């Protein structure tokens, strides 16, 4: 099969090029602003990929991941400023902290489905944001929490270590996503998305599966929040517990394609640099808001599957024609009836 192995080599080469580009980007990018955008992009890719572990595989769209982001950020901020702990270490520990919290939260949230689930996750963001505001003794509320700056890097280089921190996180999340997509666990998650009751009837312990995906997804977002806290060096509840952060994760995943493991990354790659570009050129957060809304509306209405599946179907149409579904001799069946998909 010459074609298959040749394709594999090409894909391997392309992947290699991408990896090299990704790793050398901070030195290709000449000025600190580009490095900033690059870091922002990689962070968003990691966030979108993490969200997709839950949203893409199980179909449970959580609008609450901003809460985990904020929890991770504040965990890191508080342990660093009050307990003098090492920031990067605390960012990783934030993942554990968020994972532990995500178990009871997920247990409660996953008792609901569809609309109620979304409402619960939105409420989660509100409640954690309000808690962060109210618990001034711990978080310094809206006065803001400042973290110490990373030593040893000049103003121009300051983004570089964080770029790589996010890149490593992205690589880990990607590997986890890839592993899930090839595993029985992933198959179970997808079955839950397609028809949850049917999956249960086939022996899939849907509660455990959903909770695992939820906790994993939350944990990685928590770690990203922790790294962000150190990077940005300043935390304010209203900015960090912002439903918009979660919304952007969803938008990026949708745009790229939720059912593909590359989709969320692609979505982030498209949205973040262009978003930053528009912000720099035209300023004004109101425009930004409207543009985000319009883009989301367009994606949801016109191509809810995202870019990658759309591209895939175009490619498929240019390939060999599909084999005719020859009915076997005994099949003179009535017109096909639609099966019930999960609501």
């Amino acid at each position: 099969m010459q074609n298959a192995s040749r394709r594999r080599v090409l894909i391997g080469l392309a992947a290699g090029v991408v990896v090299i580009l990704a790793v050398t980007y901070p030195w290709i990018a000449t000025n600190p602003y580009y490095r900033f955008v690059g870091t922002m992009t990689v962070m968003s890719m990691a966030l979108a990929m993490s969200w997709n572990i839950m949203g893409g595989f199980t179909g449970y769209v959580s609008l609450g991941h901003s809460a985990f982001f904020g929890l991770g950020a504040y965990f890191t901020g508080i342990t660093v400023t009050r307990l003098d702990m090492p920031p990067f270490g605390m960012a990783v520990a934030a993942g554990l902290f968020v994972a532990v919290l995500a178990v009871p939260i997920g247990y409660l949230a996953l008792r609901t489905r569809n609309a109620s689930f979304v409402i619960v996750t939105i409420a989660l963001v509100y409640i954690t944001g309000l808690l962060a505001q109210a618990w001034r003794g711990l978080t310094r509320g809206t006065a803001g929490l400042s973290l110490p700056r990373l030593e040893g890097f000049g103003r121009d280089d300051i983004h570089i270590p964080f770029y790589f921190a996010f890149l490593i996180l992205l690589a880990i999340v990607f590997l986890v996503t890839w592993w899930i997509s090839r595993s029985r666990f992933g198959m179970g998650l997808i079955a839950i998305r397609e028809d949850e009751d049917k999956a249960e009837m086939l022996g899939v312990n849907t509660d455990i599966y959903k909770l695992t995906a939820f906790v994993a997804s939350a944990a990685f977002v928590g770690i990203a929040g922790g790294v962000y806290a150190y990077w940005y060096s300043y935390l304010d509840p209203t900015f960090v517990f912002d439903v918009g952060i979660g919304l952007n994760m969803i938008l990026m995943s949708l745009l790229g394609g939720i059912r593909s493991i590359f989709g969320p990354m692609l979505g982030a790659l498209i949205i973040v640099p262009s978003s930053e570009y528009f912000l720099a050129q035209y300023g004004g957060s109101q425009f930004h808001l409207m543009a985000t809304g319009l883009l989301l509306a367009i994606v949801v209405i016109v191509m809810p599957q995202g870019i990658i599946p759309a591209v895939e179907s175009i490619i498929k149409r240019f390939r060999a024609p599909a084999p005719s579904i020859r009915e076997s001799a005994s099949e003179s069946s009535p017109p096909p009836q639609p099966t019930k998909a999960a609501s």
Partner: protein
Amino acid sequence: MTYFATKELSRAFGGVVAVDEATVEFQQGKVNGLIGPNGCGKTTFFNLVTGMIRPDGGEITFKDGDLAGSRPHQVALAGIGRTFQVTRLFPRMTVMQNMLVAVRRRSIRELAANAVRGDDVARAEGWLERVGIEHLRDTEARDLSYGQQKLLEIAGLLMGDPELILLDEPAGGVNPVMVERISTLVRELNAEGKTFLVVEHNMEMVMSLCDHIVVFDRGAPVAVGAPQDIRKDQRVLEAYLGG
């Protein structure tokens, strides 16, 4: 040993009593039939014994264990498989993927291994071949004809190695050739040791296929017996015609 039975099983929805203190026993190794007029509670009964809804009261016994209150996946792992009245599949997954979802009773070590195992694929291919849709393995389930979907649904649950199989109107909406195909499959599997409980309206199929029939009316069994006795039973006629 009581193989599969319920005792005073009850379930009401609002004011409507769907299953009314049903006490009934099904026989191991047989093809049991469950028939009755529309609305007599057959599907609710299925939903109750498979854990999809909670009973208001009563017991469900399977191999001397109480199933009442179990979750559906626990019922499946106990060895019971089930099809749905309106065929339910995973529409956007391929036929082969549909086959690979079912979970068998496994050791913890096997579960941890997690990858899609080669022998599972081989077993899936075996079942697909047996029901005659192996050539469609890479087709998305939603692109199959209704009859093919029914076959896939049955093949899919067989991957879980159930010993008791509940079929909810397997002949519903399919042509006579397909009905015969499904009947043959049921007979073959029964000969291989699987117990069946079939809900059906197609009387021809029921009478020829089932060894033991339970008739439901208004949420409870009204007659039990072999096909030839049921055919002549006055209460059965009343249930279907009267009421």
